[in-house]
């Protein structure tokens, strides 16, 4: 086979290149490189995660005692709103979509960049101003108090400036999400390397395709709804104001038409990332590839028609309750297929229990627990009992923290060598994992008991009988806060002092590992490799000669 060597490559410098900063400065620039943008997303969002985590710390500190004694009730509402908004719109959605998506998808489809690099950079650079606007509002006018759901009439009656700033911020973030989704759909469908079939794509591509379809279909509805809400606040129209003849339930329908799919926008990419990580560290092919693909499609479809299960107590008529209960219960089927496929991938594998794998396995455990409480919540009689209690808070955090955030950490341990060329410290990673896993379960498992016994969510004060469980939960939150320290130290320290990783430390077959670490601009020197079997593991040791299998010659020129 003919191999392009650096000498005979037609490496013409492009006009824009000289304007792109080099070195660390490029991470502060309007860079068009998908890898730089991916890292920008991950690092920026992690900074917002620290702020969102600090606000969670305020919440859990307040809830150590039944009385409102740490912060005022208004401040508690503001911090609660900030926590939800930051964690969803500035941390999980940008990281699992924009962050890992931008970094990995072009590799996976064999492209040199995303379909629209400039739009990609715009999508990222919408995020810092939106986030800073949201957080700055807290210190200037006080932030919004209506929670991340911003239900009217609460959002119409709380201070208007703060709520409008919140709306502008969420609109910017929604725009960023839509632009990103358009880019992913175009890249996956239109930029595939010639010869690469859809059913040969790594699973994360399918997850991102499904997620992006959800984002394109549902995010604009939220944007339109928030526009109407801002009219209600600014121009005193009455769309959602019952006093002026409006209808609050319409807001809830439109809001959840986005915000239920938003859960899948947060968790489907995590499914995809886990599907990449498990086969590599278990040295086995991903079990049930095609059923995984169809499950993602089924989740996308069903995810769009289950929103009203958030509204069983909003005067929803019986036929609607019945429909949304059944549709929601159906989601357990494709999700269950994915769950058992992951187990079957691990089954009989040669499992390396490193930090990445520990976080991924913990994800499976946490997620199945959150999934079971989710099926329970879909049942109307049960939901009416626990609606707006801490049971829902527990369920939700098992999905988005136990699900998505565990996968984010797993992915950082897994792809850090790709990003930097150095390994993360393994003992520190295990300490991080142990603290996070214990802290997380200690923090959120008690919420289920609290909710079943009737503790309402979003309130700064509670009945003194709930004190012990709340204190237990706060200890868990403290452990989670502490768990960030070894992680932070690890990622900063390993940047300079970490063990050299080599190009492919995990002996992986997915395309992003078939180039140098960190990869060159435009990903490959020479042609992109055609990877028809990204999960072709499972040989006796020594049988897998990666140099041959992966086309290493393509990037070293040997």
């Amino acid at each position, binding site marked *: 086979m003919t191999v392009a060597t650096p000498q005979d490559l037609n490496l013409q410098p492009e006009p824009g290149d000289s304007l792109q900063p080099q070195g660390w400065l490029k991470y502060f620039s309007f860079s068009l490189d998908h890898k730089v943008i991916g890292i920008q997303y991950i690092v920026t969002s992690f900074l917002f995660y620290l702020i969102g985590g600090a606000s969670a710390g305020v919440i859990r500190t307040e809830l150590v005692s039944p009385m409102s004694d740490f912060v005022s009730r208004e401040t508690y509402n503001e911090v609660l709103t900030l926590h939800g908004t930051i964690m969803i719109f500035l941390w999980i959605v940008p990281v699992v979509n924009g962050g890992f998506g931008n970094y990995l998808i072009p590799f996976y489809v064999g492209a040199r960049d995303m379909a629209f690099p400039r739009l990609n950079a715009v999508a990222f650079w919408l995020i810092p101003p939106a986030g800073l606007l949201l957080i700055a509002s807290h210190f200037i006018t006080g932030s919004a108090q209506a929670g991340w759901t911003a239900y009217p009439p609460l959002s119409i009656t709380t201070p208007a400036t703060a709520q409008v700033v919140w709306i502008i911020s969420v609109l910017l973030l929604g725009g960023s999400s839509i632009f990103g989704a358009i880019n992913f759909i*175009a890249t996956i469908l*239109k930029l595939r390397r010639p010869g690469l079939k859809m059913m040969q794509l790594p699973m994360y591509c399918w997850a991102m395709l499904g997620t992006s379809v959800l984002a394109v279909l549902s995010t604009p509805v939220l944007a339109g709804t928030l526009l109407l809400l801002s009219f209600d606040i600014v121009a005193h129209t009455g769309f959602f104001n019952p006093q002026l003849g409006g*209808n609050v339930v319409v807001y809830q329908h439109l809001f959840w038409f986005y915000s239920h799919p938003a859960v899948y926008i947060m968790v489907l990419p995590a499914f995809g990332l886990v599907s990449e990580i498990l086969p590599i560290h278990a040295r086995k092919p991903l079990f049930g590839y095609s059923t995984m693909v169809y499950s993602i499609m089924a989740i996308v479809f069903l995810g769009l028609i289950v929103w009203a299960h958030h509204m069983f107590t909003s005067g929803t008529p019986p036929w609607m309750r019945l429909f949304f209960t059944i549709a929601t219960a159906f989601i357990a089927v494709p999700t269950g297929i994915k769950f058992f496929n992951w187990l079957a991938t691990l089954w009989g594998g040669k499992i390396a229990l490193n930090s990445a794998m520990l976080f991924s396995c913990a994800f499976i455990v946490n997620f199945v627990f959150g999934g079971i409480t989710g099926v329970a919540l879909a049942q109307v009689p049960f939901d009416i009992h626990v609606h707006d209690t801490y049971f829902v808070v527990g369920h939700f955090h098992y999905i988005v923290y136990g699900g998505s955030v565990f996968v984010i950490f797993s992915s950082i341990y897994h792809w850090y060598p790709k990003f930097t060329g150095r390994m993360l410290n393994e003992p520190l990673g295990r300490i991080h994992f142990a603290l996070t896993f214990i802290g997380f379960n200690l923090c959120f498992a008690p919420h289920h008991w609290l909710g079943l016994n009737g503790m309402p969510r979003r309130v700064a004060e509670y009945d003194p009988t709930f004190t012990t469980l709340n204190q237990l939960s706060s200890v868990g939150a403290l452990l989670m806060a502490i768990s960030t320290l070894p992680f932070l130290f690890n990622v900063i320290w390993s940047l300079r002092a970490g063990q050299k990783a080599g190009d492919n430390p995990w002996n992986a077959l997915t395309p992003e590992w078939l180039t140098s670490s960190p990869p060159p601009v435009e990903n490959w020197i020479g042609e992109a490799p055609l990877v028809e079997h990204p999960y072709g593991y499972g040989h006796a040791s020594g049988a897998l000669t990666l140099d041959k299998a992966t*086309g290493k010659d393509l990037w070293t020129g040997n």
Partner: protein
Amino acid sequence: MDRLATTAPSEPSTAPQEEGLSHAPSEGHADARLFGLATFLVADGMTFAGFFAAYLTFRAVNPLPSGSNYELELVLPTINTALLIISSFTFHRAGRALLSGQSQPCRLWLLVTAGLGIAFLIGQMVEYFHLPFGLTDHLFASTFYALTGFHGLHVTLGVICILVVLSQVGQDGQVSPSKPFGLEAAELYWHFVDGIWVVLYGLLYLL
């Protein structure tokens, strides 16, 4: 081994780099820009779908207080609808003129299209000034102004796009028979805006 993990270099890329996308990985890939725009229009359409759903629900379950004046006059909006539908055809003529290399007729048809768009906007303003209700009078009024206003914003943007394309048409311009993307994108967007209006007209004026 090959069965499980095969990689092979592809044919050397011969396709030239797309102009205007200096960083684009166009190794023989089809131009994804129109596809990207179409995806965006799906998203934009969903915004309208959300508004339509809200409007229909309001109509179904929130009766207006008795004595509310919500009568709409039909003649002007119907003329407006006709203007927009005609403008879709004139835009199409502009596209055909461009592809057959006739810059001058293309510019003329674009000018006609933009004129029809501006006439629509003027008609909309005239209607606004003569309506018997204001933005906050009742739920129907608010919804009416929000829907038509949001659509009018789209028409305004479309007219600006047409004028920009108009200034770029020419044998050596940024929009030429070999580089029709600017015009095609504006045309796709314009058809979308027209289509939305037809639905909107049916829901607001006829229903």
